[in-house]
């Protein structure tokens, strides 16, 4: 009961604080709008989609695929039978064709050029609906120019089959992209306000009154954390809702799961704020640390601009940012229906939260007062 009392008080005052509201609500919305519209050109979903050329070979002895070809022709996708004289994989590799489809009695295999070309994606999407319709086993090979051989010899079946669910209209547009990365960034900034949860009570001396009341320290702590979690969650839900309604951002078909992942990030951020506030002596120090951390994490996590295929040491740095993981998780959940992609992000969040909470609880037990 006291826990709820304390949590409720925290929520109430959070939403009275215009600074918090600006930072948690107005700031992300404006940022989405600015980045989402300013950088929309760098996102390729407005490419013209005519003139897609596909090679195919059909040994299925059924008429289904021919019907598909006729239908596809109307959308500007031209299929051409493989002739003896050409090597279809090479053609795809050299980008002379956008894809090569092999239809057999066992199923269907698609080879597309590596690099997520928009044509390749559209092809995948078309074929997926075809495959779904006739319930045909399917595989997609991404033909990396330098890895052509290995892609054929070791069939990393699982990885490839997953790609069948990528639909052409489900490539993230710039607004979709920034809705995700700005939301996850703002969640991380939630650590700022939670870093002052306990410190502000100490500064205002209300900590003394709380301790003088017949409420256990653990109840105060849990109440404060709970209140902060709820406030942050409400803000995030509002941001999601706003971006969905007014920016038409795509939050996918698994919104509940996406929110769950965001919730683990909120838990991580709130715990980080509290943990840091117990690790440092001044009240300014945790804010500075969080500010720096979130800025770097945002930069390398793709919050300001998309980072495509980072290599080497740069890749390693991006992987240090928790935002990289959660952004990739949510993107895959939304655009590839891949719920298992959430696992690394959730693991990182909960492990981090646990460590920071332990730090806070241990220091709290040692302290006299809050």
């Amino acid at each position, binding site marked *: 009961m*006291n826990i709820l*009392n304390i949590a409720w*008080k925290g929520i*109430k*005052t959070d939403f*009275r*604080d215009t600074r918090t509201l600006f930072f948690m609500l107005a700031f992300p919305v404006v940022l989405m709008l600015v980045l989402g519209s300013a950088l929309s050109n760098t996102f390729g979903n407005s490419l013209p989609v005519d003139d897609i050329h596909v090679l195919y070979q059909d040994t299925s002895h059924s008429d289904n695929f021919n019907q598909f070809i006729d239908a596809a022709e109307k959308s500007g996708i031209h299929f051409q039978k493989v002739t003896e004289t050409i090597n279809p994989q090479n053609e795809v590799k050299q980008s002379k064709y956008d894809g090569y489809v092999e239809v057999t009695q066992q199923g269907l295999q698609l080879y597309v050029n590596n690099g997520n070309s928009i044509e390749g994606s559209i092809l995948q999407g078309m074929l997926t609906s075809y495959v779904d319709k006739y319930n045909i086993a399917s595989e997609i090979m991404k033909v990396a120019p330098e890895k052509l051989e290995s892609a054929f010899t070791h069939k990393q079946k699982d990885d490839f089959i997953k790609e069948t669910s990528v639909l052409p209209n489900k490539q993230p547009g710039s607004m979709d992209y920034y809705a995700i990365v700005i939301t996850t960034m703002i969640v991380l900034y939630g650590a700022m306000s939670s870093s002052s949860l306990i410190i502000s009570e100490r500064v*205002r*001396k*209300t900590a*003394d*009154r*709380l*301790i*003088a*009341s*017949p*409420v256990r320290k653990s109840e105060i702590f849990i109440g404060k954390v709970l209140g902060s979690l709820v406030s942050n969650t409400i803000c995030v839900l509002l941001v999601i809702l706003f971006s969905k309604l007014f920016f038409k951002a795509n939050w996918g078909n698994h919104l509940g799961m996406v929110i769950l992942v965001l919730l683990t990030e909120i838990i991580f951020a709130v715990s980080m704020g509290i943990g840091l506030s117990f690790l440092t002596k001044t009240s300014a120090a945790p804010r500075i640390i969080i500010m720096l951390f979130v800025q770097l994490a945002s930069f390398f996590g793709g919050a300001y601009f998309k980072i495509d295929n980072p290599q080497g040491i740069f890749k390693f740095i991006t992987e240090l940012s928790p935002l990289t993981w959660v952004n990739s998780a949510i993107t895959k959940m939304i655009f590839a229906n891949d719920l298992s992609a959430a696992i690394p992000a959730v693991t990182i969040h909960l492990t981090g939260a646990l460590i920071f909470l332990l730090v806070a609880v241990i220091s709290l037990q040692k302290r*006299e*007062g809050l």
Partner: protein
Amino acid sequence: MNVLEIKNLTKKFSDFIAVDNMSLTVAEGEIFGFLGANGAGKSTTINMIAGLLRSNEGVINILGKNAAKNSRFAKMNIGMVPQDLAIYEDMTAYENVKFFAGLYGLRGQELNERVEEALEFVGLQDKHKSYPNSFSGGMKRRLNIACAIAHRPKLIIMDEPTVGIDPQSRNYILNSVRKLNEMGCTIIYTSHYMEEVEEICSRIAIIDHGKIIAEGTKEQLKSIITNTKDLWIEVKSTEKVNVESIKAINGVEAVQIDENLIKINSDTGVNNLNKIIEHFINSHLEIRSLQEKAPNLETVFLTLTGRNLRDQ
């Protein structure tokens, strides 16, 4: 019954001993004053009683029960008015009192009534919806008190509740303290203002360097330090005053001339007022006024601790 018993209480901040083997008893119905200079250890003692600080040694009993072992019981029965304002600036006066009273298990209708009662008690009934940042220093102090009394504690501890406020608010607070006492609350009152303590406290402890150096009613305290009194005689002109002959009067210890005022310090054991007046008449000194100055607590304090109550 004793509301508070302290036995051999000691508090150290690393090597520094802030409270040194202190023992003390406060009975039900008392207004007990803590008098001490800056850093004497008043707040530290009070904070241990309220459960904010852990003692290094000693026992604190609240209403006969060991406070460390019955912390919930002790805290339920104590209302703490901290030295520093402890209120939320981002909540209204009403919400502040309600939040803290709610921590004592009050709910619903009863909670609302108690909050009203507390706000009315400190004269803030018109300020329910106001935020503390629109309050004067005195109003904030009063809210600080309201937050401590809504749960009707048996023991109210006030740590300098009148610091830095206007005389009107101060009177209001002093009256509230008396009223709370009449309603059955036992009160521990800390102050720098000697007059306040002298005015409202039934018993006083003088604290210095973490120790109680004197304890009792104000009369008892005054009698400890002094067996002399001051007689101030104002005359028309001090030209004809002969200091030596006044000093020769039995019992007179010292004579000081301050403009038209002759200050005579004299032994309380000797009744020499007649002789002094006689001397003035014989010397043709025209007496304008005559005052007997009893020692006040300030002098008691100064004599006992060798320092002023306030750093000035």
